[in-house]
């Protein structure tokens, strides 16, 4: 198997049990975050302290897997040192890569820890090869994670025009907006994905049974209202139903999560080097199941090549993990184009 035919499976872990699940079920890499706003899944009860990460790295390395740390939010001047300390911690603990968005933080990492591998986070909003090559020239990034907005031909074009490895999302929650360029949560709640590492935070959610139905608000904003028997989803702002010109509908996107499993041969063919599974907030059982299915599919795809079709059992296993939501190929396929 030539190197260009490799595709890594990058799985999420919000804690040690999920990390072990991912490693045990065949993840090539696991990505994690520290317990603060230095990463984009800054949720209560989630993430790693130094002891946990030390153990996680030991566990992963022993199994031949790698650990990436997401430091992918934007530091402000007043708290800059918290991010640089996080870079130092990650380097000192021996992580295999850091995933970053802030240019100066990348410069710091390169200067201070020249052997530390840098990946450009999806939060860096790099959707074209010129932007990716900018980060490569200045900070020596070795991989870029593409925002979930590009179609397959566009991904092919990016891969062909950069020396940087390309990682794309394969499964999980779907940002409708370009990551790093969305302030909807900050606008409605004051909690910013870019700076605080959280979107539509749980602390701002209010459920209320009313005569009109079950209403859910984020801060003061009514995100949706559900009739009895309707599945009430989490009130992420871009997933709500709103009124536009007298019509009430999902104004941004129908609720659906991403499943690009059937595109694996095309992603491989395009030269994509890694597929990322979203969901550091998910349970160890979820991580185990998604990792297992994707591992099997990647191995099958590597041996079957273009004739690969995902097994029906794989698709139904993934469908069951999505809490009744439907699946979409998202921007890769662009049904709305």
């Amino acid at each position: 198997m030539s190197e260009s035919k490799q595709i890594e499976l990058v799985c999420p872990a919000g804690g040690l049990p999920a990390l072990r699940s991912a490693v045990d079920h065949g993840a090539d890499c696991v990505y994690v975050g520290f317990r603060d706003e230095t990463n984009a899944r800054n949720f209560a009860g989630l993430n790693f302290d130094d002891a946990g990460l030390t153990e996680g790295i030991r566990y992963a390395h022993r199994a031949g897997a790698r650990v990436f740390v997401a430091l992918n939010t934007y530091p402000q001047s007043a708290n800059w040192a918290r991010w640089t300390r996080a870079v130092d911690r990650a380097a000192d603990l021996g992580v295999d890569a850091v995933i970053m968005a802030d240019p100066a933080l990348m410069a710091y990492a390169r200067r201070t820890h020249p052997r530390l591998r840098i990946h450009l986070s999806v939060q860096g909003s790099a959707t074209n090869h010129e932007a990716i090559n900018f980060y490569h020239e200045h900070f020596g990034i070795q991989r870029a994670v593409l925002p979930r907005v590009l179609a397959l031909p566009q991904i092919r074009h990016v891969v062909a025009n950069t020396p940087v490895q390309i990682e794309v999302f394969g499964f999980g929650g779907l940002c409708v907006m370009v990551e790093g360029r969305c302030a909807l949560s900050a606008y409605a709640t004051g909690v910013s994905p870019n700076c605080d590492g959280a979107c539509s935070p749980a602390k701002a959610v209010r459920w209320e049974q009313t005569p009109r139905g079950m209403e859910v608000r984020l801060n003061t904003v009514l995100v949706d209202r559900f009739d009895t028997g309707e599945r009430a989803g989490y009130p992420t702002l871009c997933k709500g139903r709103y009124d536009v010109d007298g019509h009430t509908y999902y104004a941004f996107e129908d609720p659906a999560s991403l499943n690009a499993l059937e595109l694996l041969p095309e992603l491989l063919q395009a030269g994509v080097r890694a597929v990322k599974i979203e969901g550091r907030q998910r349970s160890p059982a979820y991580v185990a199941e998604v990792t297992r299915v994707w591992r099997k599919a990647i191995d099958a795809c590597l041996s079957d090549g273009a004739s690969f079709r995902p097994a029906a059992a794989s698709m139904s296993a993934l469908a069951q993990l999505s809490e009744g939501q439907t699946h979409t190929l998202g921007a890769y396929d662009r049904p709305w184009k």
Partner: protein
Amino acid sequence: MSSFQLALGPLAYYWPRARTLAFYESAAQAPLDVIYVGETICSRRHELRANDWLALADDLASSGKQIVLSSQVLLESEPDVKAMRRLAENGRFLVEANDMGAVRLMQHRVPFVAGASLNLFNEQSLSLLGQLGAVRWVVPAEMSAEDLAAVQAARAANMQTELLVYGRLPLAYSARCFTARHFKLQKDACEFRCIEFDDGLRLRTRDGDAFLVLNGIQTLSDRVLNLVAELPALSELGIDVLRISPQANGTLRVVQLFRDVIDGTLALGQAAEAVGELAPGETCNGFWHGQSGMAQVLA
């Protein structure tokens, strides 16, 4: 407060050609120092094509104002990148880089403006962009006064700071077109319906509160940022350029109100009220005060 420059930000909406040209003809006469032109939202829009924007820039330059070409925020395809390259290599006008790809095409070669979507949240990143040739930066919409003060204290003397002080807040960009979606149209066959909404397509919550505005692939706040009452604080922070973002109506009157306050001929309270009356929605200033962006904090 006479040290402020007043800038007209790029037109986010899609207006018919004649209206756009008429708007800029008036803008040329308005008490502005800087005018940003160009299509920043969608490459399908064609009432003015790249060459038309350049010709407009040429016309406007004779007004003596500084003319800046703004680049598209979301660059997806090779034609998008090519268009940006032409802009970066225009050879005459300063360019506002709204993507790091645009920065790459201008770095160490020509001076440029670092746009708000570059997410410069700290002085270290600002300084880095300065070394590459940025001569001005536009503060991210969600940045608070407190965070900005820290950056201002450390920024290089030759780096100008520009802050959005009036207009709907640009909140999000997507590959999807929400205006086309509203009309159940494919993006590639959108019939350019966004041209029907000169102030964007209003989105309300199910209990009727005006919340957001859809403008093609862009989502804006429904509430209108109004920082006129903060002008003394902005002066103290050393903000150099105040950006007024074009709305369908009253934009140049808002420019005049800001100018009058800067010139000391209009009291802050009166100006705040007058600007509020011209705004196409309720006003807000929450981001500036470190709160949710939609909040209106009383002065």
